[in-house]
């Protein structure tokens, strides 16, 4: 069953797109990430133009993140003040990312920069997550009763609220700058390379900000939903590259998959969840490394600058 995508301007197989949506949704629900790091390359693989894939995936990430928010709110695993701070800075980052993408596209550098950025980001995060979670798992086996590790601390929301919005000491200012920098970087990368940034924000919240895994995932959902909504609107306004039909198919598959993913996540131990995510990220970064060094099937790339429609 084929459907014509009005903005991508090609016909694609609907069950294939739904399957991509479901697969990405399961990963998104399981790990609390947007899943853009999976869906963007998969869409490009099935023939969707990269600019349309990056822009449309923003809408899918927004939907899959939004679908998890109520569940996270009920489980009280969202730090709303932290989420608000990240959303504000993420919005600024999204705007900068969209502008940077347009600039790189005009110089023919977008695909190389996007691939290298993906590789560095995913490789770094995947390695550190895998190593840390393996350590945690081994430590847990040796000292099952010892939960004094930073990542395993029970969540206490009040200190975070005071970190984010109150300025009492120079250290508070530094923390606020760190949050702003994190949100800005996530928004920038999200808009630039078509990923939600959950891959970046979840590990940073866990390891640098000492936020427990469940809260990092819940808070990142709120941040991702908001920053991707901004990113989608900006892509539509500046590049006219958001395909509503493609977005709807991906969203339908994605939100269904996300529910299964989040159910699985509840039943898994945090360090196992982090190890799985780390290994998945490493596998994908390996694929990107191959893309850079492997001789491409086509030794040329075509960019359509303008079309005459009359």
């Amino acid at each position, binding site marked *: 069953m084929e459907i014509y995508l009005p903005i991508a301007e090609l*016909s694609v197989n609907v069950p294939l797109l739904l399957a991509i949506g479901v697969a990405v949704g399961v990963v998104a629900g399981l790990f609390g990430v947007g899943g853009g790091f999976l869906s963007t390359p998969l869409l490009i693989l099935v023939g969707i133009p990269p600019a349309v894939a990056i822009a449309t995936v923003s809408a899918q990430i927004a939907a899959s993140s939004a*679908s998890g*928010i109520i569940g996270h709110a*009920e489980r009280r695993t969202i730090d709303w003040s932290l989420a608000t701070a990240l959303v504000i800075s993420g919005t600024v980052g999204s705007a900068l990312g969209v502008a940077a993408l347009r600039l790189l596209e005009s110089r023919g550098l977008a695909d190389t920069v996007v691939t290298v950025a993906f590789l560095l980001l995913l490789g770094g995060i995947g390695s550190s997550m895998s190593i840390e979670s393996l350590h945690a798992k081994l430590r847990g086996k040796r000292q099952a009763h010892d939960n004094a590790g930073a990542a395993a601390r029970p969540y206490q929301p009040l200190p975070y609220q005071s970190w984010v919005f109150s300025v009492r000491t120079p250290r508070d200012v530094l923390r606020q700058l760190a949050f702003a920098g994190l949100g800005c970087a996530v928004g920038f990368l999200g808009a630039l390379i078509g990923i939600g940034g959950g891959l970046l924000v979840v590990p940073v919240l866990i390891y640098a900000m000492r936020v427990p895994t469940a809260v990092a995932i819940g808070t990142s959902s709120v941040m991702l939903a908001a920053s991707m*909504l901004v990113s989608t609107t900006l892509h539509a*306004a500046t590049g006219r590259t958001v*395909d509503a039909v493609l977005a709807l198919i991906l969203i339908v598959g994605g939100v269904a998959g996300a529910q299964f993913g989040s159910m699985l996540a509840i039943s898994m131990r945090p360090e196992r969840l982090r190890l799985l995510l780390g290994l998945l990220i490493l596998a994908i970064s390996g694929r990107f490394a191959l893309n850079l060094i492997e001789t491409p099937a086509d030794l*040329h790339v075509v*960019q*359509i600058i303008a079309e005459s429609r009359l």
Partner: protein
Amino acid sequence: VSRRGGIVFALSLLASLQAGQAISAELTVAISKPIIRIGSNYTGSSVTVFGTAQMSGSEQCRPEIVVTLRGPDETAVIRSRVRKAGIWINDQSVRLVHAPSLFKIAASRRLEQIAVADVRAQSGVDIDAVLSNSMVMQSAKEIAKAGPSYAAWRQQKAQEDMFSLDEGAVTWLGDRLFSTMFSIPAAARVGPYEAVASAFCGGLLRIQQATLVQVVKAGISQRVFEAAQGWPISYGLGVTLMALLCGLLASFTFARPRMG
């Protein structure tokens, strides 16, 4: 266009004028469907170009027909990929300005047998000549470097059924009536497509006639496209609202029954 080509074309025109006294050419051309609508289930289409051709006069000549179909123009940059420091990056580029997004040729026999290369180029029935008119290059060094990627792009366009040459595809349905069919692939751009029929005789172009077919989006595809182009901010906000509502709806649908 080369100087030699210009001279040959001038000579062929002169010969045509002289021959015109001996041969009078008549050509009509029409198209099976003037509008192709791209709906949500569009997977490609086809269009038949047909017409009548007749040469009369003192000189006996059965015309040879070449029909071209040219899609909307596009400006494209073709960049070659080279390995630098171990990784593949984009390098030298060829810029094509107002190049046809689709260009198909159907002929009643082999093009070499219909007219020589320069006449074909001047008559607009040579894809290489059409594309070279669109090419923007700065130096011979650039041309040499970008040549292979340009050739690869040509090959890719042929594989995508955007460029084609079908010699023998124009068939005669009698003494005067000819017909040929062009496929319009699923990835064809929307816009005007010009079908041009050219009648050759004695290796010279005698007469050309053109007709138009419009490829347009229809139904939901058209509405989505127009909204994205005409009201981009409202369209973007609409898509984001749809995403948000779908997400929240799914959350309620899946989560609430379990809570109860």
